[in-house]
């Protein structure tokens, strides 16, 4: 194709996005669009499956059968999200094996929040409440993103996540209405998960490299800082309902702006974790790589079996 032809296609492409039309896998798309989407969707998929680990840590120890079943179902939903996000990504011409390879080699990222340990049962509540809460704020706008398969996946993901978020809040509420010890456990979880949750909304706009292009492609509809503010404004009143305190001495309602002012985020910690040096980065990656490597013979067997069945059919037919 000539440069002019490409330019032309690009203009048509951008106009379609402008008109809120969905881009589908078979449509022509700029290479950068494809690459950006592979990066973002796979990162999102990786976050789902790495995200299974900190919560999975409490399945065997959940304090009641009802909570155990709900937690299992939640972690299973995350596997499901992973599954449709990988599928959406595969429509862009990349295989799941390649994507896993990128995750395991450290080339692809996943949400840093999952590099923190879950050390008490209240952490399961806090993750649902805060982490899923922040995820929803990040993801709801993506239900209208330009790439069709991603947008459709997000509709389903968001629906389930808001269920998870209510479930997490309910765990916190039960703790906060429980004994002193339980309430302290809830407070402790909020203390530990608050700041990492704020970091989940991404670096400040000044430090964010992908924002402008992403806005154009509707991969982003608000900046990180806007999303963060929205999260805080929504979450602080919920903490009030719970009767526990957000661990930020600078947090206070600003009548003028109609928003909460808040203290400074420890961006050094953020970058340390992103760069692979968080509390659990090694464990998480080891768990994923082990599962994948230990499962190789199983996947091989399934494939060999399918081939054998196929040849049997062919033999019968002929």
């Amino acid at each position, binding site marked *: 194709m000539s440069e002019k032809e490409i330019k032309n296609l690009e203009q048509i492409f951008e106009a379609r996005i402008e008109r809120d039309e969905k881009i589908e896998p078979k449509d022509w798309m700029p290479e950068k669009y494809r690459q950006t989407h592979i990066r973002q969707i796979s990162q999102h998929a990786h976050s789902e499956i790495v995200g299974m680990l900190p919560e*999975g840590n409490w399945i065997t120890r959940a*304090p009641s*059968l009802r909570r155990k079943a709900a937690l299992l179902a939640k972690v299973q939903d995350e596997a499901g999200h992973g599954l449709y996000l990988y599928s959406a990504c595969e429509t862009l011409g990349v295989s799941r094996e390649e994507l896993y390879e990128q995750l395991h080699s450290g080339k692809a990222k996943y949400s840093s929040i999952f590099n923190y340990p879950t050390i008490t*049962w209240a952490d399961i509540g806090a993750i649902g409440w805060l982490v899923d809460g922040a995820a929803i704020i990040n993801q709801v706008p993506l239900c209208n993103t330009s790439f069709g398969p991603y947008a459709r996946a997000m509709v389903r993901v968001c629906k389930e996540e808001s269920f998870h978020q209510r479930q997490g809040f309910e765990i916190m509420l039960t703790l906060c209405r429980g004994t002193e010890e*339980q309430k302290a456990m809830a407070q402790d979880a909020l203390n530990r998960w608050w700041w990492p949750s704020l970091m989940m909304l991404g670096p400040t706009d000044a430090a964010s490299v992908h924002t402008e292009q992403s806005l154009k492609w509707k991969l982003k509809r608000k900046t990180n800082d806007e999303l963060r503010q929205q999260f805080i404004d929504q979450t602080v009143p919920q903490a009030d309902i719970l009767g526990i305190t957000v661990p930020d001495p600078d947090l206070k309602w600003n009548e003028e702006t109609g928003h909460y002012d808040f203290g400074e985020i420890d961006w050094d910690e953020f970058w340390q974790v992103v760069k692979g040096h968080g509390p659990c980065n090694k464990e998480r990656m080891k768990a994923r790589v082990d599962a994948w490597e230990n499962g190789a013979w*199983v996947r091989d*067997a399934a494939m060999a079996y399918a081939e054998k069945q196929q040849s049997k059919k062919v033999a019968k037919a002929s």
Partner: protein
Amino acid sequence: MEKTTLYNYILGIADNNLILGQRLGELCGHGPNLETDIALTNIALDLFGQTRSYYQYAAKLSAIYKTEDDVAYLRKEREYKNVLLVEQPNTHFGFVIARQYLFDVFNYLFVEKLQHSKDETLSAIAKKAIKEVSYHKRFSGDWVKRLGVGTEESNQKMQEAIDGLWQYTNELFEMTEVDDLSVRGGIGVNLSELKETYFKEVAEVLKEATLTIPENPYFQKGGKQGIHTEHMGYILADLQYIQRTYPNMTW
């Protein structure tokens, strides 16, 4: 039939589901791919769902335990009545599948009969469970074949698992005193009657999977009398951790 007999009869059923579900729960997030991870979690969810129905009923009959969670979490190791098979570890995926399949075939036959129990609650639970259990058996049976036939390595691993777990199959059909009383009362299932069908069906599937039935004529038992393998204590230490550490609270 006496309340205690019925109570004990229910535990004899439900403890299998609880402990097998617990073993599957350990795996969640660590499966060989997302699809099997999701499917095994589904099975775990079914098992826990059934467990809850059984224990809710048991709690109504118990003088000591008031809720399903009391029954699930507050007993001592010697009071759990599950068979030894379900507490065996997730050594590798072959063991997970073999354990599941060897249990599922039994469980299907069992639940099928339990539908006709005179006890309406048990019959209702069984009627709800039969579809789930039928799916479990299909899933695990398919995987037995897949791994048995798949590659040389998978065949060896699957055979290793069958060899390791076979000694626990016979216990599934052991009739305890509680079983005898329950059968006589028209409530329980006569396990001895399921045995032949079980071993015939398993033999057929293993044959199709190009796997051999171990010739060992010796079997282990004890679970139904609460004499478990050394794995059980560690399962319970995790299972009961929060309830034991923070007693008498609502979660």
